[in-house]
């Protein structure tokens, strides 16, 4: 090997340093005082060192060539021997359509995308221009590639009309028996062969990945006429990418009321099912990218409708307590406003065991009188150790119109709340409790399980039907809970002991495209014809 001009002096310096470092103490390179000696091409002791130097020079970016390859022909030799030329398949290029809005008008142009020879995740739920990073090629189920040929001699003519066969190869282990609209496909109009044009390019070969997280594919292009050669693309793996935001509940003084946030186990659990959670994606004044759920008074925390998230993503809201009032017709909270109540302590006696009860109102009357309001401040309740029996004490002093010498009837309205770990509101907002209604903090591991469970609902599991379209025999109720494995699935109604999806829910999750969230448990796996 020998260097070509112009020399790369940076590579030369690097080669020097490497060579002398590797040959410390070598008398061919160092004198008796340890000073370096220059390499000398006329010195036979330096021959191997010079060869090594040129290898290092090349390694550090210098250009080299083999000086023995070029022939000894003079520049004016008019007759050149004929060479057998060869057609070579040189590469695959991926093209996508890039839609930009110019002066309010959508303009579509073809854009060269990422190198299809590299492995990558293909986010099958993505659409063009969905993400700001401008990297569009790995979004969507569709792949579009062209192949290129050239002559080995560099000849520019006779490049048209050569056939290249394309094959879209699924890997062993891909999901079988998917319905047609979820399967992978070639999108050729005719046979799987395309011909080259005058510049050596084929038209676009189009393929579609399956809609199943974890399925893998690659493209094989084979030259059929005029030469030999085969190219194999990188591996395309079907994934779904879902952005999320994080909101937390603050006290009125700005301190955090929520004590937990999204744990890494949530991210890794969904990654095992080929869902890449990306976020938090919001940036605001808080240092860890959280928006804030404000309190309107000391008791009620009202969901602020100005909070925003990606319309097709998830919004995790970490609250203090989460409870539902079964008396409300819509126990899952109306869409416009959500109230997450903190427990009413210490105003009235708190009854510690679930279901949680509160004295909502009290009225009193004398025997033949009319019912009147009995002030709640005059009632105190003491719970027994079993949590259910209660002694209630009524302080009759100061109640206007009440004659303590006469018999008094008091009617209590008891409000019962069901404590929840979390819920989703069908707009992609997921509420997660930090504390039990009974008082103690919920452990981080269980908070993570709540996040996974609620996100599972938003992703359409446990689904009514399997990907094949048969009924899911493990679904418990209309809310999309799973009874598989004796409560061991994280989508069980009460998921205290479960940490992961069962194999049935995992299968359904992997078959969801997750394009438009949230999904209902009975949502179909695809709209017919949509990719």
């Amino acid at each position: 090997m020998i260097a070509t001009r112009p020399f790369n002096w940076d590579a030369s310096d690097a080669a020097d340093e490497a060579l002398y470092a590797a040959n410390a103490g070598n008398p061919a390179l160092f004198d008796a005082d340890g000073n370096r000696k220059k390499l000398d091409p006329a010195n036979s002791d330096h021959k191997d060192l010079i060869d090594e130097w040129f290898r290092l020079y090349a390694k550090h970016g210098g250009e080299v060539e083999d000086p023995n390859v070029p022939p000894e022909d003079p520049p004016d030799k008019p007759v050149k021997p004929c060479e057998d030329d060869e057609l070579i398949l040189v590469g695959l290029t991926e093209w996508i359509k890039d839609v930009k809005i110019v002066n309010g008008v959508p303009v579509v142009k073809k854009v060269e995308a990422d190198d299809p020879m590299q492995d990558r995740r293909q986010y099958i739920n993505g659409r063009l221009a969905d993400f700001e990073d401008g990297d569009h090629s790995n979004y969507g189920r569709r792949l579009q590639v062209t192949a290129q040929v050239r002559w080995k001699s560099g000849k520019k003519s006779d490049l048209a009309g050569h056939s290249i066969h394309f094959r879209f190869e699924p890997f062993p282990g891909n999901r079988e028996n998917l319905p047609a609209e979820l399967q992978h496909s070639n999108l050729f109009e005719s046979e799987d062969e395309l011909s080259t044009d005058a510049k050596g390019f084929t038209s676009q070969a189009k393929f579609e990945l399956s809609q199943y997280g974890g399925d893998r594919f690659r493209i094989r292009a084979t030259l059929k006429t005029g030469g030999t050669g085969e190219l194999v693309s990188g591996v395309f793996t079907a994934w779904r990418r879902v952005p999320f935001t994080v909101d937390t509940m603050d006290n009125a003084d700005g301190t955090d009321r929520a004590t937990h946030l999204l744990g890494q186990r949530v991210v890794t659990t969904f990654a095992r099912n080929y869902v890449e959670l990306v976020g938090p994606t919001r940036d605001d004044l808080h240092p860890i990218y959280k928006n804030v759920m404000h309190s309107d008074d000391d008791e009620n925390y009202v969901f602020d409708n100005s909070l925003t998230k990606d319309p097709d993503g998830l919004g995790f809201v970490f609250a203090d307590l989460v409870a539902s009032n079964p008396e409300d017709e819509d126990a899952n909270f109306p869409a416009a406003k959500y109230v997450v109540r903190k427990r009413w302590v210490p105003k009235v006696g708190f009854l510690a065991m679930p279901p949680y009860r509160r004295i909502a109102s009290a009225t009193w009357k004398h025997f033949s009188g009319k019912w009147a309001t009995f002030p709640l401040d005059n009632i105190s309740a003491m719970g027994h150790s079993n949590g259910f029996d209660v002694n209630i004490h009524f302080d009759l002093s100061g109640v206007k119109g009440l004659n303590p010498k006469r018999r008094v009837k008091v009617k209590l309205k008891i409000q019962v709340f069901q404590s929840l770990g979390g819920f989703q509101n069908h707009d992609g907002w997921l509420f997660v409790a930090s504390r039990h209604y009974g008082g103690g903090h919920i452990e981080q591991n269980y908070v993570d399980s709540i996040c996974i469970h609620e996100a599972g609902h938003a992703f359409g599991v446990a689904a009514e039907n399997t990907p094949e379209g048969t009924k899911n025999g493990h679904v418990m109720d209309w809310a999309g809970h799973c009874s598989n494995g004796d409560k061991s699935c994280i989508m069980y109604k009460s998921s205290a002991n479960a940490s992961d999806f069962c194999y049935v829910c995992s299968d359904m999750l992997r078959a969801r495209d997750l394009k438009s969230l949230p999904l209902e448990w009975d949502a179909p796996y695809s709209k017919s014809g949509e990719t």
Partner: protein
Amino acid sequence: MMRLNQDQFDVFRDFARANFYKKTACDLTERFPVETRAFDDLQLAELVATAGDRGQACGVTSAYDIRRFAECLLVHGMTFPDGETHGWARDVLENGKMTGRAKMNMLIQLECFQGRPTP
């Protein structure tokens, strides 16, 4: 098969040589944009022709090696190898025991190792 007479062969030889000058000039322009800035196409072709003549005199005859000789003219000046500072190159080019290829290889190695301060 058609046979050519000497005159016809000479025409083809001149054509091939002119083609070589032009192609080498383009190659030099691409790889040495700074050094060739002051040259027009004709001047560059003449530089290559000069490299050919001087190379021939030193036993450097192949198209590949004449191209490398032309690089020397570009990098070391049009007086190469006759300038005052070109003694190191003359010692090599006038060595009757070396082939033209070996001479041009040696010049590159001397430039890489001897032409700079001790590393």
